[in-house]
């Protein structure tokens, strides 16, 4: 009657197999759920954001008449900067549609071109020899016109429920039929700063702001982080003090980023008196935020260098300093760089700490240095998502796509570095 061990095993075998199968299934389901969420996110962002990369342009023949521009003396720089550039556009529109006569309709007519298009004419006329000549140019259309062309406005609705009137629709149709209204690649999106008009708004200012901020963060956090890691890992005595520091570094990595912003406000703005909204301060704050990440990953990289390397170097008579800088560090560097790039990618997507130091702001002029006021890409996305104009919706998603592209790029560089230089022992 005695049951051998094999009986017990056999009795439970089916149950154990089923358990394993269930676990595999759960794993598969969770991965599929994650993938589905990612797909959904990407599809919504790409489908709404795709439109941001094209923009409707209107072809107009501009008569750059000095009288309309009110430039009487071409030598006077002031007259050039205050010239009536929109006047030229209005005149051209009136000539294109001579049958629009009433004041109300004329106002509507003027609104089919972007209200900021005068700025494009201004840019064009940086070449001052154009004064008095006639040129044919493509100017950005108003965001409402753009929405009609992109099919975001439902024409079947009654006129009073639509943002675009019947009269304007007929003007748009006429321009489309004559080939003077076309969707083109949205240059402005990549070459302009922020704007209150969606069709004039771009991400160049924010991209450069992100660039300057990250440069400051990289220059500060990488040397400090690596130096701290080398000291803690190789030189520091193991005692209560260093344990305490280690615990604190690990804790700092988990502190919500807004806290670093508050610190930045109190220390750098209020105490040191640095200006608000500049990449320099943003970079310093992000340095504080990424330092723990870099220190931790650098220490891991140092730890992974096998002790035999150190021992061999020491055995051949190298000093401790020579051992570390000539032998350990070069082998640990790829891991440190990976940590640094991942830290930078984290910093690139950060908005909360920048809120406190004034980088969440409307900035049109493109920053040219570390101390010009600037915003960063995620802040630009946040600001656009909160704007009433409908055309900002697609630009928000478009900017998210650009930001994601940079993040993917940085992460793939990190992966590549690891693949290329990392040595397995």
């Amino acid at each position, binding site marked *: 009657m005695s049951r051998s061990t094999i009986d017990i095993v056999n009795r439970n075998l089916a149950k154990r197999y089923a358990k394993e199968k269930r676990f595999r299934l759960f794993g598969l389901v969770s991965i599929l759920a994650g993938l589905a969420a990612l797909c959904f996110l990407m599809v919504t962002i790409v489908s709404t954001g795709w439109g941001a990369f094209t923009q409707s342009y209107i072809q107009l023949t501009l008569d750059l008449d000095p009288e309309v521009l009110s430039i009487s003396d071409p030598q006077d720089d002031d007259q050039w*900067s205050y010239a009536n550039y929109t006047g030229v556009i209005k005149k051209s529109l009136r000539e294109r549609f001579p049958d629009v006569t009433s004041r109300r309709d004329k106002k509507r007519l003027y609104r089919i071109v972007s209200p900021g298009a005068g700025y494009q004419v201004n840019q064009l006329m940086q070449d001052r020899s154009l004064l008095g000549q006639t040129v044919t140019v493509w100017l950005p259309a108003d965001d409402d016109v753009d929405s009609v062309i992109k099919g975001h406005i439902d024409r079947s609705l009654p006129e009073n*429920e639509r*943002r675009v009137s019947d009269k304007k629709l007929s003007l748009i149709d006429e321009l489309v039929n004559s080939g003077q209204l076309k969707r083109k690649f949205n240059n402005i999106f990549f070459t302009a700063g922020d704007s209150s*008009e969606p069709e004039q708004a771009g991400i160049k200012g924010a991209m450069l702001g992100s660039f300057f901020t990250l440069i400051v963060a990289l220059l500060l956090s990488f040397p400090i982080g690596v130096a701290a890691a080398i000291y803690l890992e190789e030189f520091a005595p193991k005692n209560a003090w260093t344990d305490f520091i280690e615990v604190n570094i690990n804790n700092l990595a988990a502190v919500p980023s807004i806290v670093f912003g508050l610190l930045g406000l109190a220390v750098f703005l209020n105490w040191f008196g640095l*200006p*608000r909204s*500049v990449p320099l301060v943003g970079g310093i704050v992000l340095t504080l935020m990424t330092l723990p990440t870099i220190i931790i990953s650098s220490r891991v990289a140092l730890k992974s260098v096998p002790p035999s390397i150190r021992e061999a170097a020491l055995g051949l008579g190298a000093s401790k300093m020579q051992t570390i800088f000539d032998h350990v560090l070069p082998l640990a560097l790829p891991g440190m760089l990976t940590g640094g790039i991942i830290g930078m990618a984290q910093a690139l997507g950060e908005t909360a700490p920048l809120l406190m130091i004034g980088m969440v702001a*409307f900035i049109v002029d493109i920053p040219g240095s570390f101390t010009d006021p600037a915003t960063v890409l995620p802040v630009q996305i946040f600001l656009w998502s*909160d704007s009433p104009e409908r055309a900002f*919706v697609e630009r928000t998603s478009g900017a998210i796509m650009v930001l994601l592209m940079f993040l993917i790029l940085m992460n793939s560089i990190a992966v590549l570095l690891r693949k290329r230089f990392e040595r397995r022992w």
Partner: protein
Amino acid sequence: MKLASVLASLVLITSSSLTVASNRDYIEIVGSSTVYPFAIAVAERFGKGTKFKTPKIESTGSGGGMKLFCNGVGVAHPDVTNSSRRIKQKEFEMCQKNGVTDIIEVLIGYDGIAFANSKKTDQLSLTRRDIYLALAKDIPNPDGSETFIANPHTTWKDVNSALPATKIEVLGPPPTSGTRDAFAELAIEGGCKSFPWVKAFKKVDKKAYKARCHTIREDGPYIEAGENDNLIVNKLDANPSAFGVFGFSFLDQNTEKVQGALIEGFAPTFESIAQGDYSISRPLYFYVKKAHIGVVPGIKGYLREFTADGTWGDEGYLTDRGMIPLNTVKRKAVGDAVKNQTPLSM
């Protein structure tokens, strides 16, 4: 050697930034998120149309902006603050204490607050009293005993028998928002005051009156939907029985999705707000530090651009963005005060 050069360049960067702090060549503006879309439009035109740099505008909320603005005189402090309400006595005193003595007040126009629902359902006609009875935390006891009870209403029909029997569900901004403050003050308090005994109560105990008449219920029907008004519009589209509270400019941009409820018989339209018929509307201001005029380049020009007829006038470009202009007489009075740089006194 390398380390020394990095350190040297850092010192250089820091010192150059300090010189920037001591002479700023662009206008710094802070303040209300409601005035923000109007201010950026003006700032952009000003920046692109003149030789000055484009002003930098931070959206900090009215209260936060006032705090930064009143912190002191000098280029480290902002030159202008936007506000969706008038400066408070306390803030004015704080300004004075910190040396910000001469402040120019500019009333620029009005903003309406829409109480809107999806176009898929009928437009409602409400009074401020209906809104108060639907959304206040405590309401007067219906038995007429001049006491307060916790708000028992769950459907609009409970509030007013003429209204449909749909659940009360209102998406609105959180307490940090200026729109929420204005909504509480104009709609909730407006309805609260319509009970004569509550109004009389104001004279007896102003604090308790404010607590009763400004507090929005927290038991579910009022849902805090975040500061993002676009999000509220999208949620209304998805949930036709819900209402949303947001600024007029968002209603104006989304006319095919949402409609504003009639308040005391008036729909939130451009005309009704301008004429003062639509009751949930508020004034918009900005404040300028007189001491900075002439120190920071361009402030005078910015003021001129803002108070030009083509900007804030009846046909100006700010009206295209949903701002409701002042009437001609008021506009002239404010414009003159700006021209003479008359400081505010309280």
